């Protein structure tokens, strides 16, 4: 099976310390109000007789198998890497149009305040390049996040996947299931937060109207030109009506 980096998270272990968020911000130089990862939690029902346990759900870009962000990107700057299944952004090719940001059901993307291009978690590609785990995984004091190739039982995440295939769940919006590659063990807590993926209006207009219209206009023009060429080749001696043509010279 192809390599697919992912995470298996035990939300039950998360204590909402936000160490992963801070570590990520530093490791990836994420500016200002931008964050690449998050901890989601529901509201505690303080009135209830029997209060449940609060569950904190750590997350970040899910490196989806069917990423709607990739479908929304016109330039191909956002793509899913064939080598490890991570969805990456080519900053040189990104023009900062923001279509992918709207298209992600998880709000995992943002416009980098400083670089003004799309940005999101890439499982710390610069740290992985030197053999380190993602910053959030290394820093987590309770080891709530396990990382690795989900299809390789020798990796920490792959091992958990192999052990508890049926117990691991994805957090998805039923209307746009992108098949995410972060799995949660046991109770993941809040599940209702992902939104329906939405393509920007300009994208829909281009795809549904502009693209077919341009094809038709250029295609018909091409046919018209071919018709003229055909006529030119078939009617070799096509001259204007002679009498009137002769008269023309009389104007001088």
């Amino acid at each position, binding site marked *: 099976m192809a390599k697919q980096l992912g995470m298996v998270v035990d939300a039950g272990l998360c204590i909402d310390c936000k160490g992963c968020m801070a570590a990520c911000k530093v490791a990836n130089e994420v500016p200002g109000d931008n964050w690449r990862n998050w901890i989601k939690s529901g509201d505690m029902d303080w009135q209830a007789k029997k209060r449940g346990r609060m569950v904190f759900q750590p997350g970040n870009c899910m490196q989806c198998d069917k990423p709607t962000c990739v*479908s929304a990107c016109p330039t*191909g700057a956002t793509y899913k890497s064939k080598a490890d299944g991570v969805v990456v952004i*080519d900053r040189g*090719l990104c023009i900062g149009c923001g279509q992918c940001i709207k298209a992600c059901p998880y709000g995992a993307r*943002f416009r980098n305040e400083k670089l003004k291009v799309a940005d999101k978690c890439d499982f710390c590609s610069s740290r992985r390049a030197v053999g380190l785990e993602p910053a959030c995984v290394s820093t987590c004091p309770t080891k709530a996040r396990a990382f690795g190739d989900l299809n390789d039982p020798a990796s920490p995440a792959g091992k958990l996947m192999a052990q508890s295939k049926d117990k691991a769940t994805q957090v998805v919006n039923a209307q746009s299931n992108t098949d995410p590659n972060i799995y949660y063990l046991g109770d993941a807590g809040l599940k209702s937060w992902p939104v329906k993926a939405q393509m920007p209006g300009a994208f829909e207009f281009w795809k549904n109207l502009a693209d077919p219209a341009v094809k038709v206009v250029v295609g018909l023009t091409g046919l*018209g030109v071919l018709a003229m060429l055909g006529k030119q080749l078939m009617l070799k001696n096509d001259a204007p009506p002679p009498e009137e*043509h002769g008269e023309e010279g009389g104007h001088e």
Partner: protein
Amino acid sequence: MSSPKMIQRHTRAGIFIHWFNAACWFFLLFTGLALIQNPELNPLGAWYPKAVRAVFGGGANLLVAHWLVALIWLAVWVVYLFWGMSRFVAPFLNSTFSLEPNRDIQWMIKKNLQMTLGYKMMAKLVKPLGYDGHLPPQEYYNAGQKLAAQGIIMGALVLIGTGFIMLFSKYFFSAADTWLVQWSMTVHFIAAGVTTALLMVHIYMAAISKEERPAFISMFTGTVPAEYAKHHHQLWYEELEEK
């Protein structure tokens, strides 16, 4: 017909800017189309951008090549416009933006019939309408050239405007303004499509059709035979004769 009388049609500056413009325009069309990787948006699908990116060493280089040539193209045009405003540009705009509906609509219809059916068939078809088989006399530019030039000029303005918005997105825009970038991409694409259709006709007329062969040659030499001017641009010819 030994050494026919020739008359001046294009200046050297005009010839230069035309071919410079055409070269840039082709480059921009073929690189621009390759910047659209998304198969749902690219009319050719994904193979074309893949192939061109392989040549340019990746999409990021392709993007730089596209806007760099666009900026050079625009810079040369700006110099040309300022330097030649009164001598070349104003007269060109005057002649291309002056249409006379009655004469020119008739010309457009008849020219198209003639181009596709030939003079004889056209004569048969337009007789019942009270036309003869003859094309109304034309000025320096014929109605088709005028319309093509108008379309290309307006298309170019739209391409420049939307192009700059996209280029500036990465430098000046905030997240709240990106809707403008998104619509710029769509409109840039439409303008490129429409001008491409116009240019297909333009190139056919100029480089392939036999009737306009002297005009094609004049885009290199600058001159056309007086005979050609008399039959294809009669009003212009008469104007020259009067002088």
